[in-house]
């Protein structure tokens, strides 16, 4: 598992797994979209709009997961002086921002027919919007510092401070009375979702994870190359 912290080992592994991951993600997207558009049933209340869930939920999970991994890498980078963590943070922040944006846009497209409004100021929606702004601040900080050494450490500190938002996003539906429904799948008891809807959701989640990994590999490799040219 050394390729997760070592840039040169990462380059070797990434060359092997980039194409398989990309092809796998395309295949999974094809199967998942087929399932979610044609092979899954309509909801008895929501009708066909329930199909937005197959994009909305995976992107929301991945927005949170990306931030959690960035937090982990910031701790590793600051505590054990691993520069790969800084590379990872710089490369992955825009991906997380895009996932959050997909989540917000698909959610408001889903909210217009179901709740009757594009946006409500309830706890889940507000905390996800704050997550998006935190991602934007990380990107802006990456763009606006001139000294690279200061930039990466300050951004890592900011990621650590901003990670207080993660549990708020996760538990906001349990702590407050929100219009957004509480968790149906990622809870301790049995998931309260029908298997016919669970299958496309899981396939789409893996498709999102694979495309995320593929883009992240590209961006991390670019970042490593740019740092090498910066040092030499």
């Amino acid at each position: 598992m050394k390729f997760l912290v070592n840039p040169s080992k990462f380059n070797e592994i990434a060359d092997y797994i980039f194409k398989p991951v990309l092809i796998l993600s395309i295949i999974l997207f094809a199967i998942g979209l087929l399932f979610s558009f044609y092979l899954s049933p309509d909801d008895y209340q929501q009708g066909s709009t329930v199909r937005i869930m197959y994009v909305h939920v995976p992107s929301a999970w991945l927005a949170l997961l990306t931030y959690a991994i960035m937090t982990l890498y910031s701790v590793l980078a600051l505590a054990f002086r691993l520069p790969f963590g800084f590379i990872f943070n710089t490369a992955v922040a825009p991906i997380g921002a895009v996932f959050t944006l997909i989540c917000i846009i698909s959610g408001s497209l889903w909210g217009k027919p179901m709740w009757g409004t594009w946006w409500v100021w309830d706890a889940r929606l507000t905390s996800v919007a704050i997550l998006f702004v935190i991602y934007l601040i990380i990107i802006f900080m990456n763009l606006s510092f001139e000294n690279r050494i200061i930039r990466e450490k300050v951004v890592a500190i900011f990621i650590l401070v901003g990670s207080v938002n993660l549990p708020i996003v996760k538990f906001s539906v349990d702590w407050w009375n929100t219009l957004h429904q509480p968790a149906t799948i990622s809870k301790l008891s049995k998931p309260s979702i029908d298997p016919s809807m669970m299958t496309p959701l899981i396939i789409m989640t893996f498709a999102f994870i694979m495309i995320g990994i593929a883009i992240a590999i590209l961006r991390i490799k670019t970042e490593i190359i740019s740092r090498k040219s910066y040092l030499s």
Partner: protein
Amino acid sequence: MIILNKIISFYYREYKLNLSGFQDILTNIVFFFVSIFIFIFSIGPEKEKISILGIGIVWTLLLLSSTLSLRKFYQDDFENGNLLIMHLNGFSFGSIAILKTFSHFLFVQIPFLISIPIASVLLNIANDKLMYLFASFALGSFILSCLGSISSSMNLMNQRNFLLGSIIVMIFSVPIIIFSVGIINMEENFNSLISILFGILLIVFAINPWASGFCLKLSIENN
């Protein structure tokens, strides 16, 4: 005793600096009142409407105008080298952060606290709510000072994007605004809300010396 002397001389220096630059603090206050005028002109002069919106307006403008002066939190001392001299005189970076936070609270936020009654007269806020506004702002402004210390120490070497520090403070002050305005509007569970606010204060006060001390150290080492 030597440490006490050092701390006293630190605050004497801060007092002298803030006295000589008193017009900056006054400018903040004037900004606060002018934006209250602007708000009233944009809403309209009906008393009922203003008294509903008044507390939200006061809190928003207090937040905005106290983030205006964040640029001066560490920047002047950093650029003329006083931060390094303080560190060489035996203050660790974390203790510099704590002392500076108290000084910012004393010299920037206390004037706002004094000007709240005048603002409440302008915005037609009821007298019984004024006490809650005071209590929530006394706690909330200290949290704002801590957050300002963190964000301005992060942006010391940021030469391009000065607004980023204000955005960082504003995004982290969302829970403070929620609970402070909640204190004023729902008076029956005053105790629980003010304990939540106090808890946030303790968390931020504990994070502050680590985060801003680390960023100060980083900026001074790499300058």
